């Protein structure tokens, strides 16, 4: 009986971590499915999500054998990289201005940031297209980039701002007290502490860009991004290589994100951010 009591106690104390593991597992289920079914042999080379054919690695070894798929993937990666860089820079600057400074027109600025997120993607996509056409602006990579940056800015601002609010300014004041100029303070205190928020925002912007289908569909011209390619082939049978590439993309992105986050933790630890629990004597 004592054992059962102890086990129950253990369960209660660790409910949260156990839940976390389960929740994360739930989030990863489709990834596992995608990965598993990239290894299933299918007679026609089209994805069927059935393992009757047995296992094969042929789709992994031939993953880059479809030129349209490669082009689409590369285009998406390039687009996402540029879009993330630009939108994160612009968005972070905006967040800092909004939280730290007082100025006229703040309400309008806030509104202007919130509204794009409130608009259905179909509308953004269609209205952008209309405008590009009005001015006979050639559709393609540049119009896609414009669109992607546009819808990413708002999200970056929100995430960074959420982190900025309630930022412990004592640390900055302490630095100032120690004689640091505002620029130095920003560089050595504010920015490192802000970085996890910026990184989270950048990751979100990257994910948004890679994932975007609706807005891209309207503004791509002849440029094909990865989601557009997938949509096209999904209606006639997805080549299994798509799954292999999706899994590869996932692995690479996961490693990259892991690396970045790990670096941040190290930086955090070095600047000793987290306040130590105060022990009363």
């Amino acid at each position: 009986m004592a054992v059962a009591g102890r086990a129950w106690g253990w369960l209660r104390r660790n409910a949260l971590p156990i839940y976390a593991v389960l929740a994360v597992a739930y989030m990863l289920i489709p990834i596992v499915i995608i990965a598993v079914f990239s290894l299933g042999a299918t007679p026609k080379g089209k994805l069927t999500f059935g393992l009757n054919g047995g296992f094969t690695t042929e789709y992994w070894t031939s993953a880059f054998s479809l030129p349209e798929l490669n082009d689409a993937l590369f285009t998406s990666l390039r687009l996402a990289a540029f879009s993330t860089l630009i939108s994160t820079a612009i968005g972070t600057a905006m967040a800092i201005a909004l939280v730290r400074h007082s100025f006229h027109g703040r309400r309008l600025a806030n509104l202007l940031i919130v509204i794009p997120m409130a608009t259905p993607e179909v509308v953004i996509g269609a209205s952008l297209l209309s405008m590009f056409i009005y001015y006979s602006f050639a559709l393609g990579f540049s119009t896609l980039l414009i669109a992607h940056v546009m819808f990413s800015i708002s999200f970056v601002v929100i995430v960074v701002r959420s982190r900025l609010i309630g930022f412990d300014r004592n640390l900055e004041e302490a630095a100032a007290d120690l004689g640091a100029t505002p620029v130095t303070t920003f560089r050595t205190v504010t920015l490192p502490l802000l970085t996890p928020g910026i990184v989270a925002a950048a990751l979100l912007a990257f994910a948004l860009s890679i994932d975007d289908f609706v807005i891209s569909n309207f503004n791509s011209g002849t440029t094909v991004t990865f989601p557009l390619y997938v949509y096209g082939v999904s209606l006639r049978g997805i080549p299994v290589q798509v799954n292999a590439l999706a899994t590869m993309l996932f692995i690479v992105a996961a490693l990259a994100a892991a690396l970045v986050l790990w670096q941040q933790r190290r930086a955090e630890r070095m600047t000793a951010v987290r306040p130590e629990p105060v022990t009363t004597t």
Partner: protein
Amino acid sequence: MVGGRVKTLVLAVATLAVAMGLAACGDGTVGGGREGEITTAKAGNVTGKLTISTWPGYIDPGKEGTVKEFEKETGVKVDYIEDVNENEGFFGKLQPQLEQGQSGGRSIFVVTDWMAKQMYDLGYLQEINHDDLPTVFENLLPSLQSPAFDPERKFSVPWQSGMGGIWVDTAKAPRIKSVNDLFDPKYKGKVTMLAELRETVPLVMLAEGIDPVEASNEDWLNAIERIKAASDSGQIRRFTGNDYNEDLNAGNIVAAIGWSGDASIIENENAEWRMPTEGCSLWSDNMVIPVGAPNTAAALGWMDFAYQPEVAVDITEYVEYISPVEGVKELLEGRGSELAESQLTFPTEQFTRNCTDQDSPPDLEPVNEAWQEVITG
């Protein structure tokens, strides 16, 4: 605070004024079709870059494929984009550009008969001179030389033809032989229909004994009513595009309205395409040259190239649809291919005796509206 509010308002108005000012720099018209003359596609040296927009899976791919063959023979660099998933969607995406006389960089679209006509009527296509396409008009099947929507083949060249009928999972529902069977409560929730108006509704009308080409608006609307009732009651599971093959493969459905050539992508071994007892729908997808096409010479060259029987037979072998090129059947027989005997790739007159061409309703607006209501729930 009042001062702040006024300031905000002023800024808002200023922004709006800027927007209006910018807008004034542009054209003022939207829709109404393109004004201006309809041009004829110019022939010339077949070089440079060619961009084609077409349906997925409509050509034999890879290093030995037709695209690569063409590139090798002519030196043209081909950008073969498979972004036509449905006629309407594709049209909707390109319409603003076509209206301004731009084709989005493409020199060829591949769209279904009625969409080609719609584009032509709006002034979005260029005409084709038969003299520029000797191989095409030498080898074009007689049955396709003078279709109702383009009697003189002024603006369209068939790519492939096909039939709309019923795909049946013979292991689960062997008795389905007619579109009427799809309304049988026995199969509730296990049936899908195509979301394209001109595919599904004519078939339903045929099943009621009405000739779709002669049908009145009321006939169309009545058929739509019937479909709507079936959809609301849950009889019809979904309205699909090409993706009915997924439901078939996954065992989610026992029957679907679908296209004859899709055997190449349906992995369910028990599924077979059936000609409905009352008849099927016949359609072709056509190559058309849009306004503003950057390289019409190469486009014409491509069309002519694809009509050589040796090239066309490779396409048919992979795609399994009906080739418009004379001589393909003999070549396939020579290769000992089963396709040569298949009614689906070489249907006889007898086989398609009851089949109907796809046509638009007499008054499109209300029918389209009623249909959209059905498929968007």
